[in-house]
Each structure stands twice: as C-alpha cells, then as structure tokens.
C-alpha cells in the first residue's frame, strides 16, 4: 500500500495545468470579459487617440492657413465687400446711382421716400425699352441696388429702389471651428463686379454713422 505522500507526489503534475486555469480564471475579468476589460479600454482609447490626431491635423492645417493670411489684404477685401453691400443704408449712393443709370434718355421727375429706407423714383421716359435699359443699368451698380417695384404708365414710370445693405454681424474667433475657405472667392466677386458702375458717393448714410477705421476691432 502506497503512502499518502507518494500519492500526492504522483498527482503533482496536475498542479501546473491547475495553476494555468486559475491564472486565466482570475485574470479573465480584467483581460477578456467584465466592465474593466483591457481590450475594450484599448478600443475606446484607440478611437479617442485617432479622433484627437484628426483634430490635431485640422488644427495644424488651420494654423498654417491663418499664418498665410495677410490681415491688410483681408481688410481691403472687406472694404470692397462693404462697398458692394454696405453695412448701413446709403441713400446718397442710391440717389447718385439712379441719376447715373437714368442717363440722358430718362428724366427723373422726383424722388419719394419709400418704406424700408428706399426711394421711389418718378421718371419720364419714351417707352418700355428705355425703362428696361435703365433697370439693367440699375442692377449693375456698386453698391448693389434692389428694384422693389416698377410701374410704367404711358411715358411716366415709378421705380421703387433700395440699396442692398445689411448690418455687420458680430463674428468671433473659435479655435476649434474650421476656417472657411476664402481662396479666390473675393477675387471672383471682384472680377464679376468689375464692369459694374460704382457710386462716387459711397459714404453718406441715413443714420450719419461713420465707418470704423478697423472693421475687425471689437
């Protein structure tokens, strides 16, 4: 009969797989399953790192674009854009441009203030063709004019006009928002509007406000 000690020694080889099973069993929660499993954490962290890398890449691009910008050039572009669509109602420009558009073929009999800050022109002209030509000229001006109404009756006409204007919107820098792409946009507009008639009277406003020297200042 074998002693207990000998029997234990004979079964001892099973301790090794036993320890392996125990090791896996105890660390299973940490590695494979359970709420704290590392593989899930790795997947989440990987996603986070990838999205942060994308953010960093966007920021690098944004920084490069910002460094390539010339503030003086932007100011002059804004000057041009505010000449095309002013930030206030430039009635004086409206008067000047309508006189220019009338030319020799149309007589302006009078001006009447219209609701919304516009004007109604009373005109004397030969016919619809002359009126059409004048309207075409009115729509090719800087600042832009908006024709609100047209009424022709015989040789007299009334044309309701407004200067296209819109107050400046408060805009703030936002580091994490992508920059708008401006490449060539203003140049295209400048090209498009190159043939437009420009009013020499562009500074008078209905409110009498003066234009800010630095349009970007707060």
């Amino acid at each position: 009969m074998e002693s207990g000690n000998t029997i234990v020694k004979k079964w001892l080889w099973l301790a090794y797989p036993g320890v392996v099973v125990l090791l896996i069993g105890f660390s299973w929660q940490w590695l494979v399953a359970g709420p704290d499993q590392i593989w899930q954490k790795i997947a989440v962290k990987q996603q986070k790192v990838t999205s942060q890398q994308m953010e960093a890449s966007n920021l690098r691009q944004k920084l490069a674009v910002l460094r390539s910008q010339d503030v003086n050039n932007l100011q002059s572009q804004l000057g041009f854009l505010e000449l095309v669509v002013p930030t206030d109602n430039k009635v004086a420009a409206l008067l000047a441009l309508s006189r220019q558009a009338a030319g020799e073929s149309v007589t302006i009999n009078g001006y009447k203030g219209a609701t919304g800050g516009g004007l109604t022109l009373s005109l004397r002209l030969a016919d619809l063709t002359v009126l059409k030509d004048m309207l075409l000229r009115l729509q090719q001006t800087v600042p832009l004019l908006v024709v609100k109404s047209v009424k022709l009756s015989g040789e007299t006409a009334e044309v309701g006009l407004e200067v296209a204007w819109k107050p400046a919107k408060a805009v703030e820098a936002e580091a994490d928002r992508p920059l708008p792409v401006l490449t060539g946009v203003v140049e295209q507009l400048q090209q498009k509007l190159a043939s437009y008639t420009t009013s020499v009277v562009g500074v008078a406003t209905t409110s009498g406000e003066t234009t800010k020297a630095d349009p970007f200042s707060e």
Partner: protein
Amino acid sequence: MINLLPDTKNIITNWMRYKGVVGVISSFVLGGYILAAAGSAGWWLFLTRQDEAVKAEIESLTSQIIDLKGTETAVRVVDERVGVVNSFLTGQADPTVLMTQVLGQTFEGIKISGWTWKSDKKVAVATVETTDVQAIETFRQKIKGSKVINLIRTAEGLWKAEIQL
C-alpha cells in the same frame, strides 16, 4: 468479499498517460495568454503615451491659434460678408426678365402702354393697346403662360387689355 475501495494505483496509471499532453497544452495556453496580456498591456501603454502627446500638441496648436485670433476673426468677417454679397447677387428678382421676353418679339398693331411689376410677386402685368382685338389674343399666345385679366374698349375705340405675364 467485494472490494469497494477505489483502485488508486490503476487510476494514477490511467491519468499518467495524459501527463505529457496536458503539460504541453498548458504551456501553450499559458504562453499564449502571457503574450496576449503582455501585448495588451504594451499596446495600452503605447496608446496612453500617444494620447498624452497628441493632447499636448492640441493644447499647443490651440494656443497658437488663439494668438492669431485677430486674423481668424478677419477671415470669418470676410466670409460672412461674401455670403451676404452672394445672397444679394443671386437672390434678387430681376424685373427685366419678363420685359426682355416681351420686347424680344414683334407684335403687330400692339402698343405696350403700361407695365407693373413687384419683386415679391415676381409677375408682371402688361397693359397693351390695340385697335384689333385679335392682336391681343396673338400677344397672349406668343407669351407662354400669360393670361388676359382685364379687357376694355375705350370711347376712342381702342382695345385695352391687362395681361398677366
């Protein structure tokens, strides 16, 4: 007499046959498990380092962008204004479109004596005069979508029609 005690020697001998296989499998499992655990821990450490590095880079880039706040505001202001100009250039109703349509055709015996147009309605009403009422119908037929909304005969014998275009 029946011996109910287990035959220990036989059981041990039977199990001993699997000793080698169990040992090899255990080693493979343990090796694989350790590799996976070490790999995961290493990957986790690598990601943590990357996370810290990219966070630091974002902070640095953000602070540099904030330093250029003035330029960014300028770009956004210009962009906003470009939108305003474009909306005026493309969004306004053109009063000359219908005029061009009418003036581009010849209407015998018809005189266009009036024209009414409003930007919000985008339709025009032409007043035409003629001595021949058939000319009004010809006019209406030539201008697609037009309709006579008013027709009167004056004391002088003229036909006067308002035609919506």
